[in-house]
């Protein structure tokens, strides 16, 4: 459904020195700065797939989505979404996609959501019966039927986001871009949005690309992950794969009974010691030596509880994003 080939985008901005003199100078001469936002990106997304697009701020996630939604033109490369070049903005293409932006309201601020939705029904030419059925379903699942007639500006952030989701999906898009859909929401609202996205995916099978800084979004919703660093794709694969590829160790945590005495020296030959006190030992142990380390801990210390965990995905991604060159597993 989405095919991206060597897609690149550079932006030209102007640098302005701070202060009054900088402002005066910029009236006559401005220094041009070329920023590479996305570089040679290639990937595909299939029907019913939710792909997590992650990266630090400025990594190029939103720029990539904007190109695939047809909002901006690429500098080079090509992309086909449902067979269309997005930036040519064919109406047949635009009727089949949706972009949900957590940081940008799309609904008419001064009108009740119901009015905006009616407008969108007309904009997308949705037949009456289909509109009614879709709206009933979306409002019921998102639990906002009672808020449809309240002006959008008076809704809570969570309710507004739910309305944004309805507005984006009321025409039944086959491709959905979700740009930080849970940003700023409380935990309950985040969970509700995630559950809804999963349910919607099950029922409608659209291709979805999701960007988020919340790892829980990515872990709950995406089986596949694309990691962007400074505009380049540095990883494209399964969520489990990124852990296996980039985390060469697991975290072994032992909680001790009060009467234990712990020697740091003895622990260092089992793995890297992250924490060590009278009640807790936390080690980073190479994958191949986890069983041996666990057995050693149980033998040597009065262990009350033992946990063996993968490194948090957020930590791995953060490490990849920080690294300048090739990230060694």
């Amino acid at each position, binding site marked *: 459904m989405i095919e991206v080939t060597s897609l690149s985008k550079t*932006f030209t901005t102007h640098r302005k020195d701070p202060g009054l003199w900088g402002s005066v100078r910029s009236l006559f001469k401005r220094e041009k700065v070329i920023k590479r936002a996305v570089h040679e990106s290639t990937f595909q997304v299939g029907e019913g797939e939710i792909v997590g697009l992650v990266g630090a701020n400025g990594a190029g996630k939103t720029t990539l989505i*904007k190109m695939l939604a047809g909002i901006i033109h690429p500098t080079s490369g090509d992309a086909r979404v449902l067979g269309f070049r997005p930036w040519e903005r064919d109406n047949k293409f635009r009727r089949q996609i949706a*972009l949900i*932006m957590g940081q940008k309201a799309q609904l008419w601020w001064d009108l009740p959501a119901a009015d905006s939705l009616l407008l969108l029904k*007309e*904009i997308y030419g949705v037949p009456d019966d289909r509109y009614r059925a879709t709206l009933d379903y979306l409002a019921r699942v998102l639990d906002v039927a009672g808020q449809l007639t309240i002006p959008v500006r008076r809704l809570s952030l969570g309710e507004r986001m739910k309305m944004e989701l309805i507005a984006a999906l009321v025409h039944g898009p086959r491709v959905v871009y979700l740009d930080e859909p849970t940003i700023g929401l409380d935990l309950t609202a985040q969970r509700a949005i995630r559950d809804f996205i999963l349910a919607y995916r099950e029922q409608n099978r659209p291709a979805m690309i999701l960007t988020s800084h919340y790892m829980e979004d990515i872990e709950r919703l995406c089986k596949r992950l694309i990691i962007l660093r400074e505009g380049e794709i540095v990883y494209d694969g399964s969520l489990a794969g990124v852990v296996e590829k980039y985390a060469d160790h697991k975290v072994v945590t032992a909680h001790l009974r009060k009467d234990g005495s712990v020697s740091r020296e003895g622990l260092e030959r089992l793995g890297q010691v992250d924490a060590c006190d009278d009640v807790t030992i936390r080690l980073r142990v190479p994958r191949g030596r986890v069983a041996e380390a666990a057995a050693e801990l149980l033998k040597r210390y009065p262990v009350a509880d033992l946990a063996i965990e993968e490194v948090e995905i957020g930590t791995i991604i953060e490490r990849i994003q920080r690294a300048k060159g090739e990230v060694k597993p």
Partner: protein
Amino acid sequence: MRGGLLRDLLTAEIRRRMSYRADFWISAVSSLAVRLAVAWFIVKAVFEGSGRPVVGGYDATQMFFYYVAVILVGKLVQSTDLEQSVSQDIYEGGLTRYLLYPVPYGLVKYVQQLGAMGPAAVQIAVFAAWIPLAFGWPQGLTPGGVAMGIAAIAMANLLHFLMTFPIQLVSFWADNVWSLMVMHRFASALLGGMLAPLTLFSDSTRLVLEALPFRYLFAFPVESMLGRLSPAQWAVGMLVGLGWCGVLSILGRAVWRRGTFQYTGVGI
């Protein structure tokens, strides 16, 4: 664009405008009543100061009605604050949502401008109704003139949109087009007959003004309405105004095409 969509866009803008009741009535009072009072004092000062009974083909009463008409027509033609709407969309990234919709952006904005005319018309109806009672029936105002005036206002509204649209699209390249809009507003007011009737200009200047689009924004609809134009003059004026609409529409399309190529979707 389908009829249902046009209707919904139009009424959505009307509802949006009317959702701020206090602002609706305050703007009605401030922009109409105050300007009418200012017009009254200006006309009084001009005629009393010059000591002449007729200035630029208008006596004091006719001049006052000219100002009344040009204020009311101006409100319909300019449709309040939508003049900055396009540049704001570009500057703040609001354009993004319109680029996603399968409808032409320019047409959506124009229909919104028409929608903004609805509340303006209500304000005009409320505040203009008492004018004949207070100042008498304007000389030259006939049903035929009113009909010609309404058609001229419709053309002027479209012309105003098509003039401001390409200027606002400069926001694709410049961060702020406010100064360009101020220049346009000033040029329109001076050369379009909002500051003073165009009959105050010399014959040769008037000839030039008739060829430029500004006259067709304010002076032409007002002169049509007040019966100062013959049907033939009105027909020629409509043709010139619509001709400018065509030229500006082509210009707007070209600038839009180049501009959207530049668009970076700021704010998201």
